[in-house]
């Protein structure tokens, strides 16, 4: 199985450890993983700002970089949602379609494609799980509290395989953290307030770590935690699943 690693631009630049954990995790599962080194960004920042028409360059680059793989896997719900919903290439529509259909967020790739049921990792800490909206409501990684439907959680299912971890129940299980891409600066006051409220919910339940499938939400909450000089740390779920000692 040939797998391409799709690393969001800000993870590449600011959180290389998340990308390394994802790579190692997939390699340790015996997969043939490669990282197309000419990748940049999926184009979501432009698209969500109303400039989807400027994302053409990113689209063609994405198609060029990620052709010829069985699966494309990214440690992000948001970037994957953007690709599955908006990637298009007028010159190579079939190729773009194949890419859209084979691009997976990391946890759903582990649960739905690889169907793993054991993990060799331990994380002896109290952890709060942040449900990032694009992963949860967009990619349906977990059940949403608004719906009258059976409960499930793909990231939760994987965290259950980690030894010694304690995952806490939050008051508001799936409220948005307020990152929202350019929203985080365009609507600074509301964005920060949403982030503070999310962080407080975790703090109230005495978590030592906040984890999630999207580093963007975690980066936003980390910025707030660090400004508050809070002892709570953030960690991407790939790092926990890979067993990297924090």
């Amino acid at each position: 199985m040939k797998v391409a690693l799709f690393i969001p631009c800000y993870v590449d630049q600011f959180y290389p450890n998340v990308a390394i954990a994802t790579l190692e995790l997939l390699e340790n599962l015996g997969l043939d993983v490669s990282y197309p080194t000419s990748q940049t960004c999926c184009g979501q920042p432009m698209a969500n700002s109303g400039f989807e028409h400027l994302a053409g360059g990113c689209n063609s680059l994405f198609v060029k970089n990620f052709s010829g793989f069985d699966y494309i896997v990214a440690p992000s719900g948001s970037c994957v949602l953007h690709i599955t919903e908006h990637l298009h290439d007028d010159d190579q529509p079939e190729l773009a379609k194949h890419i859209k259909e084979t691009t997976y967020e990391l946890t759903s790739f582990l649960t739905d494609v690889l169907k793993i049921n054991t993990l060799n990792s331990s994380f002896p800490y109290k952890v709060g799980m942040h449900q990032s909206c694009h992963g949860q409501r967009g990619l349906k990684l977990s059940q949403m509290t608004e719906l009258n439907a059976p409960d499930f959680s793909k990231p939760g299912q994987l965290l259950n395989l980690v030894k010694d971890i304690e995952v806490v129940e939050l008051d508001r299980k799936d409220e948005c953290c307020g990152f929202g891409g350019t929203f985080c600066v365009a609507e600074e006051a509301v964005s920060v307030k949403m982030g503070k409220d999310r962080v407080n919910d975790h703090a109230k339940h005495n978590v030592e770590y906040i984890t999630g499938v999207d580093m963007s939400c975690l980066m936003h909450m980390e910025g707030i935690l660090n400004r508050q000089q809070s002892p709570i740390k953030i960690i991407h779920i790939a790092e926990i699943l890979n067993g990297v000692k924090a």
Partner: protein
Amino acid sequence: MKTLDHAERADIFNEDEKRVDWHDETLWWIRQKRDKSAHQIPEWEDLRETASAIKSNTLSNLHDYLLEFEKNALQNGVIIHWAADAKEHNEIVYRLLKEKGIDKMVKSKSMLTEECHLNEYLEHQGIEVIDSDLGERIVQLAKEPPSHIVLPCIHKKKEEIGELFHEHLGTPKGNADPQLLTEAARVHLRDTFLTRKAALTGVNFAVAETGEIVICTNEGNADMGAHLADIHIACMGIEKIIPKREHLSVFLRLLARSATGQPITTYSSHFAKPRDGKELHIILVDNGRTRQLGREEFRNSLKCIRCGACMNTCPVYRRSGGHSYHNAIAGPIGAILAPNLDMKQYADLPFASTLCGSCSNVCPVKIDIHDQLYKWRQVLVKEGYTTTAKQVAMKTMATTLSSPALYKLAGKAARTTLKYAPFMVNNKFNAWYLQRDMPKVPQSSFGEWYKINRKKNEQ
């Protein structure tokens, strides 16, 4: 004078954090009541699907249903008026009052009349309008617009209402006992109901097959007004039509549960014909609705039954308040309806969202609200309703991200700046930094790490 946009208004709202907490928790409590109530109905998701399908059918055949409704209503003895826009609607109301020599009117909740700014118009013509919905009366006394379509004065604390009532209705100063205040309002409104010759109401549902209208309230104020007046004027947007009476069994189950978590509104009153010697007028208003119907990507927004669930669940609405949307209808649904009325004036609203998607999940008629917010953003930018600064920034970003070499260069430059000249970034011009720290700078990018550690795989 430039009107403040959503972000600027939200900034002001957030100056009082305790108040934001209170506003957020009040509305979250209603969202929880909605969840509890919705989760007690095993067929809840089927109900939403059915309601959405009925509305799809209605919108696709709106022309026919409207004519069917008109025909049946006329047979019932109702007088039907058609209004192309807000101006025509307001003029019809005024003409009806003037013909009868009426200069005082009681009005129950109608978001359509808010949309048409009827109160201001009538006041200008010397007509006194008293809103009889308690929440609406409160904001009317405060000379403010409603901040929520179901809970018009949700932004006001009971102490503030106590002050208002002391000033206008003579309640004891400093008394904010809800029971006492409600009783004072009741006495005041009772007098209004008894002395008004005209009553205006909104419409929740208009049934095509019978020509009747259904009005849902918790206070019975629409009934009280309509029953005591000589002339009842009911105003409705043309999208309020439903084909058959039996469809109410779907919508009435969804409406109040979605709105407040109640199984049904206290009053769901059917008005089919005027009482002897009295008049019932129904004004069917377009005001941009047919234009929205023609926008294929946005036509589903016309399915809205005005329950307000999207507002209660919206994390942005809860922390910015209804007035920050500077539109009669606030929140996520307001943000997809308003640009249809005026793209320039409401160009900021589709951006007042993180696109979290919670609104679409609570919507009882399954409007794809967050997807429409995304689509409005594209339309607004294409139509030129954006700033030059944003255009330049986006073009630069697109150029950088379309080139692997430029991207690597820019990434390195950003990391180097943060590491060696953090003051360039950590200042008040960086909205991220105002209340958040910047991420720590790693030793290298993942791309750089990969080149060194996984050379064998390099393409």
